[in-house]
């Protein structure tokens, strides 16, 4: 276990941001913290990154206790903030150089690692330009590369695609997958984008009001609470037989189509179709993480302004 938390808790005056969370994260996995803004994800991340001291409980990161050895933890983690944290008056390469200096990357390796990191995120050609001329996506890529420069064991990504357009978001996901493969680093990612958690993460913890409401692989989560639905137009459906199938929750007729709800998501399509007879149209809808989230928390994702996030970091600086 590269990260373990033991009842870790963060209380502010009249708010419990993180409420006795116990988590174990394995080495090499991409672990997602999914929840609405304000759920406590960033606070949890800040405590793991030793930017904030826990009010109660503790955590070990890479074998070190967040309360006792913050310095050692900081050397073994990389952090990519959700708001830009590169210096826009410096060039991309200069930003990486400063990072290499601050994290004690040995002198003889600096240039090599900087160039490698730049090419990993396809920024070699723009590395000599000032960061203020970069697009939002380029800047995020630079910060991803920077987070890995000192070869951390763990990389924390706080909302890595917040505010990016869908196409750029896809690109960033590709880069994150590439990093995970080529650098074999454990990645902890917070997000409130369902698709992001679904497509990137090996396991996802759904967090709401400061505690973990569910924890599994994305497909596991969907299996547990989700229901597949088959909609079909058929000439002579054997509705009674379909109803007796063990995995069928209900059958209804809607506007000449049969709607079959399944208790579990899965591969029963063939058998069901055999009871439907000649079929002219079939639609299978898989559950999404959004359905899971709605099921577990009883609501959708809340929105919050970016300003409040900045405040969270200002608070986080107190550690």
């Amino acid at each position: 276990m590269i990260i373990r938390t033991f009842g870790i808790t963060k209380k502010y005056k009249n708010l419990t941001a993180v409420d006795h969370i116990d988590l174990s994260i394995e080495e090499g996995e991409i672990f997602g913290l999914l929840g609405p803004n304000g759920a406590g994800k960033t606070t949890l991340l800040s405590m793991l990154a030793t930017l904030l001291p826990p009010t109660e409980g503790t955590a070990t990161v890479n074998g070190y206790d967040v309360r006792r050895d913050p310095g050692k933890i900081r050397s073994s983690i990389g952090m990519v903030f959700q708001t830009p944290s590169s210096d826009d008056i410096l060039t991309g390469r200069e930003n990486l150089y400063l990072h290499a200096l601050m994290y004690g990357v040995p002198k003889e390796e600096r240039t090599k690692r900087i160039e490698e990191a730049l090419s990993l995120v396809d920024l070699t050609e723009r590395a000599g330009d000032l960061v203020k001329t970069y697009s939002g996506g380029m800047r995020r890529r630079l910060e991803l590369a920077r987070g890995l420069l000192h070869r951390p064991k763990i990389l924390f990504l706080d909302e890595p695609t917040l505010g990016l357009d869908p196409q750029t978001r896809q690109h960033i996901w590709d880069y994150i997958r590439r990093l995970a493969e080529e650098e074999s680093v454990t990645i902890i990612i917070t997000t409130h984008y369902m698709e992001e958690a679904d497509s990137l993460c090996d396991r996802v913890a759904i967090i709401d009001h400061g505690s973990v409401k569910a924890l599994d692989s994305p497909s596991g989560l969907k299996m547990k609470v989700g229901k597949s639905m088959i909609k079909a137009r058929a000439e002579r459906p054997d509705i009674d037989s379909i109803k007796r199938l063990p995995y069928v929750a209900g059958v209804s007729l809607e506007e000449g189509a049969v709607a079959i709800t399944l208790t579990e998501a899965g591969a029963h399509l063939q058998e069901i179709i055999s009871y439907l007879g000649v079929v002219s149209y079939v639609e299978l809808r898989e559950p999404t993480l959004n359905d899971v989230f709605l099921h577990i928390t009883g609501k959708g994702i809340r929105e919050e302004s970016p300003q409040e996030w900045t405040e969270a970091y200002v608070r986080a600086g107190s550690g």
Partner: protein
Amino acid sequence: MDRSIREGWFWMNELWGIYALWYREVKVFLREKSRLVSSTINPLIWLVAFGGGLGASFSVGETTYQAFIFPGVLMLVVLFTTIFFGLYVVWDKKIDFFKEVLVSPLTRTSIFVGKMLGGCTDGLIQSGIIILFGPIFGITYTPYSLGITLLFVLLLAMGTTSLGLAIGSQMTSFEGFGLVQSLVIMPLFFLSGALYEIGNLPAWLGAVTYANPLTYIVDGMRGALLGISSFPMALDLGVALAYVVLLVAIGTISFERMT
């Protein structure tokens, strides 16, 4: 790993980190040409317009008024450059690069030292430019006078950057900037004898002036450059050193407690 090796490695990293922060500040300073130009023009206006205008009907002994206030204007340059450099840490805290610095393995003390040296360098570059203009205003340099002047500039810059960083690290918004200017910079400057002799001041003004550490810094520079001074050089240097030690200590503690 042997304990002493590990500690040596730790200090090496801290030094590289301090270097990184210093490098960043100097790069940024040199890249923002407009700031450099405006903070050069300001003191020159003081010397040409204020010094020239008042000097037309007023001189201090054998010395022209322009030459007399030259050390004071030099101090003004350093004061403004370094205190505002320090105050900008308020801005740093909110955005961009500083988050990255705070999450790095560097200790708060190293972060403070790196910033402080960065501000010092800015102050030295800025005052160096003004020093180059000195001969126009009747200042002649000897290795001794130049050396002593630069030493005072350095000490002043170290202390004042620390003061700015200390205040800035405890502020939460820019709103306090004006207040710092009227309650800190202006009194320190005007009550330091930068613009007048302090020998025959009314008692209350004299008391305040004698309590102002900057009085001794101007006095030291003026002694070295023009041979006009009210205190022994050793006292001037001693006060300047005390100013640095006190403010660096306050700055370090403020950074440790920064939220």
